[in-house]
């Protein structure tokens, strides 16, 4: 299948592609390297790339000075919590729309997607005031609610495009055999839908982990997830490059690894099935 190319050309293209890849990845690599330097080495000129005294003290210091683990757990709770609740609400809806479509299903899906188009600043003021009055500012519960709502359309859409690919005949056959609605969902649909649900979950955790409008505006200290915690380095602690790097590395590492695993599902998920 693959085209036949000369080995010179293959080498040239390979080198060019690797250069582009390393260039794109370099800021991340540099952050990781800097996190193992002392503060003096982090700003040394000329910068040292590999030959410095590797140290773990920045990681220890970030934890002891600012309770990093607390913010990490906030991120985990909020992103997993909002994804789980979102899935619970979305799975029945996506199932119904994929297998019992009506004339209005398409319009309904489009309308759901349109809620995602609303810029967050359009509702910042009332949400902020409502949260203040309900005592939800700077709470994990409040952020979980907001992230569930903003991600719900994407979850429904992703699940819908996956469910759509499950052949309807199988469901018909199950129904012929007398399966009820719930046993149909539990024994027939669920096993076939698990891969789609898994990739929806993965992508949504990534999106929720990195969400940086509501997390910055609705939290102060207690419930701040990593996005907001890192923002506190904007000044003047940001001048401590090694500590900033250590905090950043810990904040992005888990999600980068998850993201790499989910890259195949990423495209269709992020384009609402428009590109597969």
């Amino acid at each position, binding site marked *: 299948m693959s085209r036949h190319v000369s080995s010179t050309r293959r080498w040239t293209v390979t080198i060019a592609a690797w250069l582009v890849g390393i260039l794109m990845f370099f800021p991340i690599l540099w952050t990781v390297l800097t996190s193992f330097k002392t503060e003096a080495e982090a700003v040394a000129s000329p*910068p040292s790339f590999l030959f410095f005294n590797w140290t773990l003290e920045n990681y220890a210091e970030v934890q002891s000075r600012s309770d990093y683990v607390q913010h990490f757990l906030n991120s985990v709770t909020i992103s997993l919590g909002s994804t789980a609740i979102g899935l619970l609400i979305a799975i029945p809806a996506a199932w119904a729309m994929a297998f*019992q479509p009506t004339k209005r299903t398409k319009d309904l899906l489009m309308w759901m997607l349109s809620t995602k188009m609303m810029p*967050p600043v359009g509702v910042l003021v009332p949400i902020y005031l409502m949260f203040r009055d309900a005592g939800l500012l700077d709470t994990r519960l409040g952020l979980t609610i907001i992230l569930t709502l903003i991600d719900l359309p994407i979850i429904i859409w992703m699940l819908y495009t996956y469910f759509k690919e499950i052949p309807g005949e199988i469901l018909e056959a199950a129904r012929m055999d007398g399966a009820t609605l719930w046993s149909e969902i539990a024994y027939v649909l669920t096993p076939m839908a698990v891969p789609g649900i898994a990739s929806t979950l993965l992508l949504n955790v990534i999106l929720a982990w990195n969400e940086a409008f509501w997390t910055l505006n609705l939290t102060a200290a207690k419930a701040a997830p990593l996005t907001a915690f890192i923002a506190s380095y904007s000044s003047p602690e940001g001048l401590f490059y090694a500590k900033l790097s250590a905090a950043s590395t810990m904040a992005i590492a888990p999600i980068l690894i998850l993201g790499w695993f989910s*890259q195949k599902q990423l495209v269709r998920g992020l384009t609402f099935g428009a590109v597969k």
Partner: protein
Amino acid sequence: MATKNSRAAARLLVAPSVILLFLWMIVPLGLTIYFSFLRYNLLMPGTEEWVGVLNYSYFLTDPAFFAALFNTLAIVLGVLLITVVGGVLIALLLDQPIWGQGIVRLLVLAPFFVMPTVSALVWKNMFMNPVNGLLAWVQTSLGMAPHDWLATTPLFAIIIIVAWQWLPFSALILLTALQSLDEEQREAAELDGAGPVSRFVYIMLPHLSRAITVVILIQTIFLLSVFAEILVTTNGGPGTESTNIAYLVYAQALLQFDVGGASAGGIVAVVLANIVAIFLMRMIGRTLET
């Protein structure tokens, strides 16, 4: 084939999502519209009163609004230009037979997973800082004066940071689209003597046009609301040089506590986003038909 019973059940299953999204869309948006017609400042409680379109006329005639509108469009267009052109080039490159393609893909994709506050701070401090930044070191090593990115060209600096985050997205989507191109079609063109340029213009580009449209529209939705990158790098400054509409509304609401004015600004942002959204919905709507 659906019975009356199962149709009712289906409606019941869809209901929670619809109700939640309906409330989420209508209640806050309705409140924003309502607030936008009030004089309402959190620092002066009890003085709320109906002022008609006064907030809108203040917001829309404020020089900061024009600066913000210009900056918003500059960020959207600047990032789109970099990511679409760069994305096509990267996709073409990675579509070639190369060694270690899987790893290169992962490397290119990585910035997309970096949270906005991290990428903004890493770029701000470790790359764009005029004293200790890596870019300053490169420039001094080349005998040039280091460039103070965020002080002298803040908008351009923000465009670079945001483009770095979104380039992986467009590259990955365009690569996926390119790989779905029929191999036989390419070979036929090659056999007919089409050179690389005409193969790109007449075969690949038309094939990519749909994916490019999707990339442009989806990115535009997010780029209109760039916020965290501005908050942690420049705070919209110096002056209003890097303030976009999202940041302007934020500043009015949570820094000046002007609920009425911020609400009017929020509605302006919604109208802007809707113009883009209409095009996007049409595009995606078409995919439902197939």
